[in-house]
């Protein structure tokens, strides 16, 4: 199912708003290299009980994400974007509806089964980096493989590779407090991709970073998406950051308000090249 069809089938869409959007062309939807939908959310409802009051965080969200997509999820606070991320990340279960990840309905799995899904199929990148303190970059990246049960030698090798991909091969023995914010976030990205997940979920990954470092981190995401075909969904409230993605989904009041493709995403690499070089963005780490 193509993104376009999803959009048009979405009961909850704001039709007139959608029509106002520039993008209707779904360039990658016709890409024969992309397989069937990676993620399908069907009429997802999430209700929280706060004392006597029922809070409807999600009021029927349906969504398809294909392999290789790069999605920015936007919305105001309380719009349901975080709840959606938690459900996508198998950290939370929907009250109603179905979530099919990689052909498996995960909406009814047990706590431990969800832990295994998170371990194998989902990589997390957080706003606050969430690295284990006083643990080297290498060991932080090894952590997901520990729970996968890999051998020590394989763990180290794969962690090394992942750190090389994010350009931190020379920093692997540093502790998080010896790394800059951007470097820490790149360690977190390395950790998220080390188990070869189906999707990387990034929750405000640039929220704690300055603008130049933000561009660098977005550059890493774009590179992973472009060169390795890794599916990425990131939550952000900065429209600038969303411009690096290839598709934007906007939440409002527990529903998807808008879902559109970005015709010409910004290129972090080009922007970095045009930025005046600074001496060394890693100077603060010693």
């Amino acid at each position, binding site marked *: 199912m193509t993104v376009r069809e999803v959009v048009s089938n979405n009961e909850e869409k704001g039709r007139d708003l959608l029509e106002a959007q520039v993008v209707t062309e779904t360039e990658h939807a016709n890409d024969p290299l992309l397989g069937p939908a990676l993620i399908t959310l069907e009429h997802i409802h999430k209700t929280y009980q706060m004392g006597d009051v029922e809070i409807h965080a999600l009021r029927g969200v349906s969504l398809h994400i294909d392999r290789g997509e790069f999605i920015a999820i936007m919305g105001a606070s309380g719009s349901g974007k975080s709840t959606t991320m938690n459900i996508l990340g198998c950290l939370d279960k929907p009250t109603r509806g179905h979530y099919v990840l990689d052909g498996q309905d995960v909406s009814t799995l047990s706590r431990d089964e969800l832990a*295994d899904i*998170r*371990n*194998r199929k989902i990589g997390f990148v*957080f706003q606050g980096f*969430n690295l284990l303190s006083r643990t080297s970059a290498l060991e932080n990246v090894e*952590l997901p493989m*520990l729970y996968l049960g890999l051998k020590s030698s394989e763990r180290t090798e794969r962690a090394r590779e992942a750190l090389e991909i994010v350009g931190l091969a020379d920093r692997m023995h540093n502790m998080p407090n010896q790394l800059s914010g951007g470097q820490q976030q790149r360690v977190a990205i390395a950790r998220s991709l080390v188990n070869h997940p189906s999707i990387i979920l990034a929750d405000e990954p640039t929220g704690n970073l300055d603008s130049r470092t933000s561009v660098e981190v977005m550059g890493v995401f774009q590179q992973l998406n472009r060169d390795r075909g890794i599916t990425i969904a990131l939550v952000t409230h900065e429209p600038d950051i969303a411009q690096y993605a290839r598709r934007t989904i906007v939440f409002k009041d527990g529903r998807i308000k808008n879902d559109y493709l970005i015709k010409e995403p910004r290129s972090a690499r080009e922007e970095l090249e045009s930025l005046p070089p600074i001496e060394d963005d890693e100077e603060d780490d010693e």
Partner: protein
Amino acid sequence: MNLFLTIRIAIRALTRNKLRSILTMLGIMIGVGAVIANIAIGQGASSQAQASIANMGNNMLFVQSGSMNTAGMRGGAGSSNTLTPDDAAAIETECPAVRAVSPAVFANGQLVFGNQNWVASGRIQGTNEKFPDIRSWPIAAGEFFTEGDVRTAARVCVIGKTVADNLFAGNDPVGLTMRIRNLPFRVIGVLSTKGQNQYGQDQDDTVIVPYTAAQKKMLSITFINQIMVSAVSPSATYTAESQITDLLRQRHKLGANQDNDFFVRNLTDIAELADANAKIFTNLLASIAGVSLLVGGIGIMNIMLVSVTERTREIGIRMAIGARSKAIRRQFLIESVTLSLAGGVFGIALGVAASIVISNTLSWPTLISPVSIFASVIFSAFVGIAFGYYPARKAAGLDPIEALRYE
């Protein structure tokens, strides 16, 4: 995730808060140390009591003649002449609970060798050839007299270490002839050192001669003062006591309303009471020390609860990247077990050191038992599991979303 790795992670987590971990361990360490030291003290007392039983002889009983009663004047125990060598022989042959018997005759008198003289505080004891076996008192040099010496009332003697030191002053007394109550006796052996009895009396200050020689050559009597009896086992001493009583009442033709004209004294009785007291003492000390171990366990639980709260975010991260509840629970459980086991191991060292210091400075006998060390290790692991389980379960039950959001 394998166990070895989990242990390594636990140790690393504990070394991050060194002071806190050490203080927490200290609780268990003092608890285990106290248990081991106290059990060592109790066991020392108990083994001392048992040693004094062994020192007295081989499951030993005494039969003493009763009080002489002449015209209403009573001479006290041992003063009558109702016990005979035949009584001793009858006890040996007719009481199944009895293993060996020796008649005993006591005399006082001066010992002379060359220009030295001495009066043995342990008296001159006349016995038969079974004396070393009954009293479990081996010969150090020479040999003990034989059945033949007893039959012929030979003038031979075996002397205690104190007598040898005082009369013979460095010479080997074996083969020399000394005078006992002015009669020449050839020294044929020296007894090994026995030390003091439980009343502080020097048991080595004695001379042993064949009881027949003492009867005929020194005292001109036919009766004996005492019968030394060795029962077949420690518990058989009680059976032996009643068998001897029945036999002697019959032999002395005592009617049902007549009192015994002898006393049977069971030494095991006294010693066992002392041993039982020592055991009560041990249990009391161990249970007091056990309370401190319990307090140590509560300390571990407290610290683990603090640790779980502090590391909520870490728990959230681990859960997000795929740790199952079980893995989290195991991680914290192993941390608390590592704490308590390490405390236990250091506690063993502390307990052993304390026992040594106590026995050296207070000269209390201590005995460190391997069982108490083994039990301490098991118990401290158990404390770690018991008091670590609740915090570990709390950690494993955290909601990953909440945990990740925790500041």
